[in-house]
């Protein structure tokens, strides 16, 4: 390497990093990419975790507001989120559907058995293909889908107490449309 480039290189790396950071700081890391908002929820048909139950499809949930929670037994942040989901399930005001993402069904079952099962239906997305359709980039994520089958909100990372109040209740108040 010519010695000019050798001595300048660290400076160039620093400059490049600084530019990326400045751009990166403009966005809120917890905010979702807007691509999926107000678009119809992509269709899928996945087996249900408990054997014997019918397959899970978004069409079968038409007409009501429902939440699609992407989780996995290997996901650490899901443990933090879990008590909130159990609380949500207890209130029973909205259908909570789980998407077991890239997970072995027996692992998912053991995980839920140990922590309690908040979901009314659980779709098994073993190879993560549905996750790709939904633009899942990290687990957990939670999609809020209205009665027309349109994605209205996407929460990245664990949901908290404020999530239901801010993003689901207004929708229920409007009658889910």
């Amino acid at each position: 390497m010519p010695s000019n480039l050798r001595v300048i290189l660290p400076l160039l790396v620093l400059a490049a990093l600084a530019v990326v950071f400045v751009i990166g700081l403009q966005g809120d890391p917890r905010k979702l990419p807007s691509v999926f908002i107000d678009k119809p929820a992509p269709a899928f048909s996945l087996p249900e975790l408990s054997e014997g139950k019918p397959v899970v499809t978004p069409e079968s949930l038409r007409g009501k507001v429902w939440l699609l929670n992407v989780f996995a037994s290997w996901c650490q942040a899901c443990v933090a989120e879990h008590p909130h989901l159990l609380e949500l399930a207890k209130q029973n005001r909205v259908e909570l559907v789980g998407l077991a993402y890239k997970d072995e069904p027996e692992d998912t079952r053991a995980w839920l058995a140990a922590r309690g099962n908040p979901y009314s239906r659980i779709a098994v997305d073993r190879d993560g293909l549905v996750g790709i359709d939904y633009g899942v980039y990290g687990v957990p994520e939670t999609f809020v889908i209205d009665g027309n089958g349109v994605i209205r909100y996407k929460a990245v990372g664990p949901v908290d107490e404020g999530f239901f109040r801010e993003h689901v209740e207004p929708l229920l108040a409007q009658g889910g449309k």
Partner: protein
Amino acid sequence: MLAELGQLLVALALATTLLTSGQQLWAMQRGRFDADAANRMLSVAAFTSFFLTLGAFLLLATLFVSSDFSVLNVAENSNTLLPVQYKFAATWGSHEGSFLLWNLMLCGWTAALALASRGLAPGYRARVLAILVLLQAFFLLFMLSSSNPFERLLPAVPEGRDLNPLLQDPFMVIHPPMLYMGYVGFAVAFAFAVAALMERRLDPTWARWSRPWANAAWSFLTVGILLGSWWAYRELGWGGWWFWDPVENASLMPWLAGTALIHSLAVTDKRDALKSWTILLSIIAFALSLLGTFLVRSGVLTSVHAFATDPKRGIFILSMLTLIVGAALVLYAARTRDIGLGGRFGKLSRESFLLANNVLMSAALGAVMLGTLYPLFAEVISGRKMSVGPPYFEAVFVPLLLPAAYLMAAAPSLRWKEHAAGLLRPFAIATGVCLALACGWVLLLGPFKWLTALGLAGGLVLAWGTLDHARGQLAKLAGDPAQPIALTARMRRLGASYWGMVLAHMGVAAFVIGVTMVKSYEVEKDLVMKQGQTMEIGQGWRLTFIGVDRVNGPNYVAQHGVFELTEGAGSVIYLLEPQKRMYQAGRQVMTEASINYGVFRDIYVSLGDPVENKPTDSVADLAWGVRVYMKPFMVWVWLACVMMALGGFVTVLDKRYRLRRTQTAASSGADRAGAVANTGAAGA
């Protein structure tokens, strides 16, 4: 009143540091300065700013301990129910408070340097001090303008919001101070390098002066990372101890750079080689410490433990980072262009092995950095978010760092400059024996896994290489067989720096073995247990669930599980008592795992939630989710980090650093023969 006084002290410290360093640097630039007078002034400024920030820190601590909720910082991070030791620790639990701590440590390091650097060449010492005092001014300015810990909240609130319960743990109390001691300590190495550039003193002396400081900083950082990791192990309840989370990576990156730095400094000190590399690594280690702070505090990356984040502060830290590091790199570009490669060395020599170590460490650093920042790059370029998980890090880290263990085994016994290939034979034989032993070990434990065997062999050969070299060194010093010199005298002759290296390298050996065993043979079980039920958890261990009751802590209520752990026939019984705590102020639920530590295995139990099958279940029948882990050799990982850190601290005691300093001050071109004679010893 106290809050205003604290703010005043910080402002006074800012004025002192800014004026002194500005005036001195200006004088230096014009080439008209009296080095001794400058040193006196800068030392006074260093002590003044240290006592001013110490005063401010104690005032903030007082505000926390007395629960003064008219101060915003206190109201947001403390609570009257908090036990008093955590009220005190909450002083640095928030972003603002932790920056005050950062400043206090920087002032502490500078004051220590002012005290202990009398032996340095006066002109050089003045530059080092001026740079550190200027850095203080930067950070104090940042604190006053964008994260003032003394900001008032008027009217005051009756009750505070509480300290993040995750931080309410004795080890978490000392984790940030240790980590910061490391981060800030690299500022000293940075100042040494930049001062060397300013003075065009690119000879081995600056490296020798920098070594004990860099070693101490590295050791503190090691302790800080160890405490953070151990805390995650006990507190998060996930059984893991390293998650490749951005916040963890932020502390690992300066550690890797620091590891490369302390070895590179040794080469520059001993052989006058790798000069511009060493300078660059000094700058990079500190730049990464700043980057770590930026990543953790700006919220530019999402993390499971994103604490207080604020993008505005992010811009501020980023500008400061760019300014400080940019200025140093400009100087680096201007001053190192024409320096040669320094001392030459052959392909097989101690230098080449140390260089290989540097390259592996830097590659590992690059890999961690890429993995940590990739989501950000991807988002900036394509607008899509994505994440990089442990599989990536494990896939790149192992092939980069495992060879380092084998190289480290041979490096200390290689000669400087040129080593005859034939002399490597004992090492080759030892490697073969260790590989055979490791294969046997793996086969005893179950199906053969070649990566496990390679890891164990790496640890074994490293331990052998280190101890064998020490034995050889001691034998060489024995002298006349008729009148052998006493062992203790010979050990002393080798010097603290040598024994520190031996200790640290043995630590690395233990680490490699520990990690290999944990990663290859850990067992994880998710169980559902009813009271009184006993379950086999493997290797002859049985776990009996006695029950769950409620206990009240000072600021939480806990569900307190009791388990009996028995081995074999059941003659030995251990009690394990994991808890689930609900903290009252924030209503967060925290898991306290219970761990039975052992030399060869940890058994780790964490309490999940009750499983409500049917509403009619009586409380006694309630089944609970229970997570059990069997972690072989886990303790080795912790002890290994302790050994590495201790090794680093021991090197600081080496008389050679202090001796040399006074000698060099007297006659600047001290003869190198003495240093080289000692080299067999105090290598890397």
